[in-house]
């Protein structure tokens, strides 16, 4: 099977898979609730169905506790995967990902700064956290790009090294902040490894607009992203405004990343693993790669969250631990493949 039908089937399959992991994720927990009830509760809230045979406690657990959290997980997963596709496409670097590039750590520092100092709270109100996170993300990305840009453009390995250096610096800043405010230990720890234990409807509302605007914006530029794969010069000769495209997409991806980080902390490797898998399965055309990666990113993070909640229940693992367990071997694999290709 070739071309369009194959991609549509992948899209449909992934969507069904997302619905399934979504319901599985809501039904899992200290009180087990079966999947049918999950959809009955959602149906009742939307005014479909009459809600007969639903236990009131179950309804509260689902609607107030689990649903916002699970939605948040899915949103963040989709956002991180999209950001990964964009970073890899624009930087032409197979190892790029918001976490590895240090963008997530920059956003974390921004977010922690906003919380600890409550600067800007008067002016920006509820937006001060994402705004600070975005500023941190942009600062980190600018630093990484400045460090990595050599005479011959962006080298794959030096970009990763710069990412590591910048990330260590921002992690040190976080620890520094931690030593001033030991009472914030719990919360700062949370930023370092990521987590959704604080997820509620407000946060879903805060992140959703970023996906709603960010995804179509990236998707509209998918033809430009495809051409960038030919190399910057070739893209320019085909009529792409390379500088504008690069700045636009990097800003959008960083903004989406910082929105995700602001609610969930640093979660690594989703943006690395998903674009690679989807590219292998369905090809590198960004018009299909972006939506399919968004779906797959949501699925992967939902599964990781299920594991994080159940492995050492009733306690909970930081979700970043799970994604790192999956992502680090994957990273090693891609690095090796890249070295073989370049004969390094």
């Amino acid at each position, binding site marked *: 099977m*070739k*071309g369009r039908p194959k991609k549509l089937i992948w899209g449909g399959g992934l969507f069904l898979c997302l619905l399934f992991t979504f319901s599985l994720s809501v039904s899992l927990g200290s009180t087990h609730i079966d999947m049918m009830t999950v959809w009955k509760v959602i149906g009742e809230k939307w005014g479909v169905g009459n809600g007969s045979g639903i236990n009131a406690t179950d309804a509260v657990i689902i609607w107030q506790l689990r649903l916002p959290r699970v939605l948040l997980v899915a949103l963040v997963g989709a956002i991180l995967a999209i950001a990964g596709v964009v970073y890899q496409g624009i930087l032409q670097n197979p190892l790029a990902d918001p976490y590895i590039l240090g963008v997530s750590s920059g956003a974390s520092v921004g977010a922690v700064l906003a919380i600890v100092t409550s600067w800007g709270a008067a002016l920006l109100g509820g937006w001060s956290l994402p705004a600070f996170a975005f500023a941190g993300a942009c600062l980190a990305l600018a630093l990484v790009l400045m460090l990595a840009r050599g005479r011959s453009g962006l080298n794959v390995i030096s970009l990763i090294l710069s990412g590591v250096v910048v990330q260590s610096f921002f992690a040190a800043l976080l620890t520094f902040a931690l030593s001033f405010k030991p009472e914030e230990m719990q919360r700062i720890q949370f930023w370092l490894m990521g987590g959704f234990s604080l997820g509620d409807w407000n946060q879903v509302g805060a992140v959703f607009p970023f996906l709603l605007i960010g995804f179509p914006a990236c998707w*509209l*530029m998918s*033809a430009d992203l*495809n*051409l960038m*794969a*030919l*190399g910057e*010069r*070739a893209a*320019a*000769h*085909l*009529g*792409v*405004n390379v500088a504008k495209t690069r700045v636009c997409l990097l800003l959008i991806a960083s903004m989406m990343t910082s929105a995700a980080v602001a609610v969930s902390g640093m979660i690594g490797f989703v943006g690395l693993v998903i674009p690679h898998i989807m*590219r*292998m399965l369905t*090809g*590198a*055309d960004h*018009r299909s790669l972006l939506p399919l990666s968004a779906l797959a990113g949501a699925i992967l993070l939902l599964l990781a969250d299920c594991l994080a909640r159940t492995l050492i229940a009733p306690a909970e693992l930081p979700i970043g631990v799970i994604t790192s367990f999956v992502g680090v071997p994957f990273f090693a694999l891609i690095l090796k493949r890249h070295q073989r*290709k370049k004969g390094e």
Partner: protein
Amino acid sequence: MLQAARLGKKAGGRWLLQEIDLCVEKGEMVGVLGANGSGKSTLIRCLTGEWKADSGEVRLKGERIDTYSPKERARIVAVLAQEPLGEIEFTVEEVVKMGRYPYQSRWSWASGRDFDVCDSVLRQTGLWPMKQRQLAELSGGERQRVAIARTMAQEPELLVLDEPTTFLDIRHQLAILDLLKKWQSECGLTILIVLHDLNLAAQYCDRLVLLKEGRMVTSGVPKAVITRERIEEAYGVTPLLMTHPTLHVPQVFLQPAKEEKK
């Protein structure tokens, strides 16, 4: 089609290119020759609008080249840069379709005409049977053919190529140049091409331009450019010249340096 007047380009206080006057007429194939570092690639970058010249100006169809928007320019000029296509995870057809980018708006992707053009290009270049193959599976020669097909899909009036045959064996070199020649005669395409091989340049180009240290040594028909004196001046080697038995253009023979007599 393309004119350069007193074109100059400076980098780090040194002139890479100086006082270049060049005129490429519609429908002709002009070859650019010169030793390594003589400014061939710099000239190409300035002529295609990729770099801004530090002196003089470049005019494309009578208008200054920097007045065109990137997409407008890409509808007139297609460029095949020196770097070969990498091992990217696209199919042959997808890469060829990228050539249609300058004709597409952000809101509508591919029209029926885009598909027609791509299909005909794929057939003309003999890539039709392998259009679903991944680029990474192809050989260097096939990949270069895909790159040329992409520029054909761009439907340019002027095609600029920077050493398109460098990494290819003789069979593929000839195949690529024959394809260009056919395209030139059938569609009235104008071609500006940088070549390393003097003999191929003499065989295929209508006119040649010879560069040395960023200046133009001479330009004209192959017979006028490929002469013993000019080659010696531009490359610092002394060639033997003969006329091609069937094409009647000058051909260069090289000889090992003679040992100096004591």
